[in-house]
């Protein structure tokens, strides 16, 4: 191949190309963007526009109803997705076996966001505009927070098992007025917020005598939120922070950050980072012989963390959302029939998000997003007949009864801001894995959360 016609690039051209190429390259790192499972597009939305919140049988019910599930099929949290996907799939199967919402076939369309806000925006639009999703049963804190205004404009209920962000403590839900959507915000979460389980973690830390803390956290919204939630309870109850170091994720070494952190005097240190970066940081911590008591954020309760860091990590503990929902056993039986993915802290909430949304459709008698939004509160709170699955709820609604869904992860008793309370499980690292050592009851945590602020 003749090469003498190839012109050399001067430096300015190189820098221009490098810059533009870098931007293009970064934009290309988003992942697959395709759907893991695809429905047929369905016709499940906007069928009649009815605002009825009674037990309408849905005369013009569609043949297919679609739920969209943005997921972490790739990216930093993809190791949690199998359990969440399996729970959602199990819920869909169970609902369809029970006759489906409004007698229609429920389908789940799952698309990868790689926990990237821009990709999440694209995926949310695709799910609503192209897939005709009646509701969205996913999205992370890191996606919801920057896209908040956009998601409100989308006016489609988002019932998600993922976000712990304190940003959502006072955002979302129906504000206690189900029939009036004018004050609504369209996000609900079926997992307890960071405020709750970090509060439990903080309470436990103080009970164990760790009154001064060092903190190392990633520089993303989720990691910051976790720490902020922890500190709001920890400092309120007498704890002090000696040093806090924020780090970029994906680095090849965290030794400089650890060196800085451990120059301070503290009893224990809190690590809030995604798993892969946390393993690198904790391995550096072990190599450096820094010692002291590690407290880990909830996503780090994974066997891989212990395996890679080694015995130095033994005794580290994690506070994660408990599995104390009234219908956990029912969920677990159906879940295990679906596959063998490991259950994590976001698995039961994924089941709950699909169940409660399907029940809202059944009660509304419509797949209109506004009708669903109006019925999420009524099927989850109040004094109606307690139901633990869609099948029970469908039957009760058919009998003209009001229902109250009691979930697998928590009681799923939505607050006015679309949040749920639940217990907090403390697990301790041992050679065989994380062992559940104690549980902080939901009532105990609730006393640290001011009324109306969650």
């Amino acid at each position, binding site marked *: *191949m*003749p*090469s*003498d*016609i*190839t*012109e*050399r*690039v001067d*430096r*300015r*051209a*190189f*820098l221009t*190309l*490098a810059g533009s*190429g*870098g931007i*293009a*390259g970064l934009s*290309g*790192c988003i*992942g*697959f963007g395709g759907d893991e499972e695809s429905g047929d597009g369905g016709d499940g939305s906007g069928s009649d526009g009815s605002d009825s919140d009674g037990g309408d049988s849905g005369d013009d019910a569609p043949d297919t109803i679609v739920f969209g599930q943005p997921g972490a*099929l*790739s990216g930093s949290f*993809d*190791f949690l*997705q199998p359990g969440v996907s399996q729970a959602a799939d199990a819920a869909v199967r169970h609902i369809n076996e029970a006759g489906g919402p409004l007698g229609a076939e429920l389908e789940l369309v799952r698309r990868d966001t790689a926990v990237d806000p821009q990709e999440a925006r694209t995926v949310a639009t695709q799910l609503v505009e192209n897939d005709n999703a009646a509701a969205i049963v996913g999205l992370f804190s890191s996606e919801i927070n920057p896209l908040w205004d956009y998601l409100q404009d989308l006016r489609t209920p988002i019932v998600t098992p993922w976000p712990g962000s304190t940003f959502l403590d006072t955002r979302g839900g129906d504000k206690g007025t189900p029939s009036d959507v004018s004050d609504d915000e369209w996000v609900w979460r079926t997992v307890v917020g960071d405020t709750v389980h970090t509060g439990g973690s903080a309470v436990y830390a103080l009970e164990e005598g760790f009154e001064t803390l060092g903190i190392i956290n990633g*520089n993303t919204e989720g990691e910051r939120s976790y720490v902020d939630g922890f500190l709001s309870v920890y400092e309120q109850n007498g704890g002090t922070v000696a*040093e*806090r*170091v*924020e*780090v*970029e994720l*994906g680095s*090849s*070494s965290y*030794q*400089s*950050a650890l*060196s*800085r952190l451990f*120059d301070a005097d503290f009893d224990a240190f809190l690590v809030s980072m995604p*798993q*892969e970066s946390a*393993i*690198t940081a904790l*391995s550096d911590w072990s*190599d*450096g*012989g820094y010692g002291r008591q590690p407290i880990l954020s909830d996503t780090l309760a994974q066997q*891989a963390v212990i*395996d*890679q860091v080694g015995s130095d990590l033994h005794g580290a503990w994690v506070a994660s959302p408990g599995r104390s929902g009234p219908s956990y056993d029912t969920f677990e039986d159906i879940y295990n029939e679906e596959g063998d993915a490991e259950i994590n802290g976001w698995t039961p909430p994924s089941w709950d998000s699909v169940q409660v949304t399907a029940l809202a459709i059944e009660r509304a008698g419509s797949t209109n997003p506004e009708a669903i939004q109006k019925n999420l509160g009524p099927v989850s709170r109040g004094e109606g007949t307690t139901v633990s699955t869609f099948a029970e709820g469908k039957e009760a609604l058919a009998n003209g009864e009001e229902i109250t869904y009691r979930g697998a992860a928590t009681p799923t008793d939505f607050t006015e801001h679309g949040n749920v309370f639940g217990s907090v499980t403390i697990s301790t690292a041992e050679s065989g894995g994380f062992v559940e050592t104690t549980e902080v009851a939901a009532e105990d945590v609730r006393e640290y959360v001011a009324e109306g602020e969650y």
Partner: protein
Amino acid sequence: MGLLQEIIFGLVTGSYIAIAAIGFTLIYGIVNMINFAYGEYISIGAFIGFLAANTLPGPLPVAVVVAMIGGGIVSIILARGFFTPINHTGPVPMLLTSIGLGIVLRNGLRLVGGRSARYFETETSTFQFDAIPDLPVGPVDLLGDFFVTSEQLVVVGSAVAVFASIHLLLTRTDVGIAMRAMGDDESLARVRGIDTQLIRDSVWVLAGVLAGLAGVLMAVQTNVSADTGFSHILQILSAAILGGAGSPYGAILGAYVIGLVLAVSTAFLPSSMTGLSSAVAFVILIAVLLVKPSGIAGTEVREA
């Protein structure tokens, strides 16, 4: 801990970057293209090394050698398949091709390698040096107690071995001298009888070998995943630009400047700004380019 410890951390980080930056800048200097897929070459090297470590008998160095050989083979195959056919189109189409190839390779690795990160099984020893005087200057201790790990020594040692090998290659071998000649003026090199395609192929193989080594070293410290190399590509690119794009010696210098700035800024920035250490490194990059647009060592090396 004192400044000495931070410098050690910076040297280790710089060594990771330097090994990869040499391969990256050689491609630019001699093949005349910016290869944005180079991060994926590193990831492929990490995967090959991991596969070798888990299937072949022998210690980790065996896997490193396999990764280097495999990296070289993959690099020349990709070059022959995607870049050599469009050599005549100039740097822009080749740049765009490399971006596309990088995306394809990264997602291909995700599909083949799975979504979970994998880890090398290694043992690390730590050597503590205590009772070192602090030697304070103002609020900063210049010395003080420090430690190094066996892993850090291996990384720095590997980097030094690579630097020496590259220097010998470029100054003592016909292939290396031909590479430098092509880097200065390809047409003139051809007139003087240099087989330029052979030299291009040699550069691709060499860059792949270095990517294989960098991939295993990075993966031992972090993990093996589709993003192992990609997550460092901006640092590698910056090192190449900072040192003087096309200059391997400049890339080495640029890598250590970035490594040291990352370490020192993390240690001494205010608490609320420690997550911005990379930004500080890029500020330095911009400042250097404003003062000396050819990069730190660009001109000097071209004249060597």
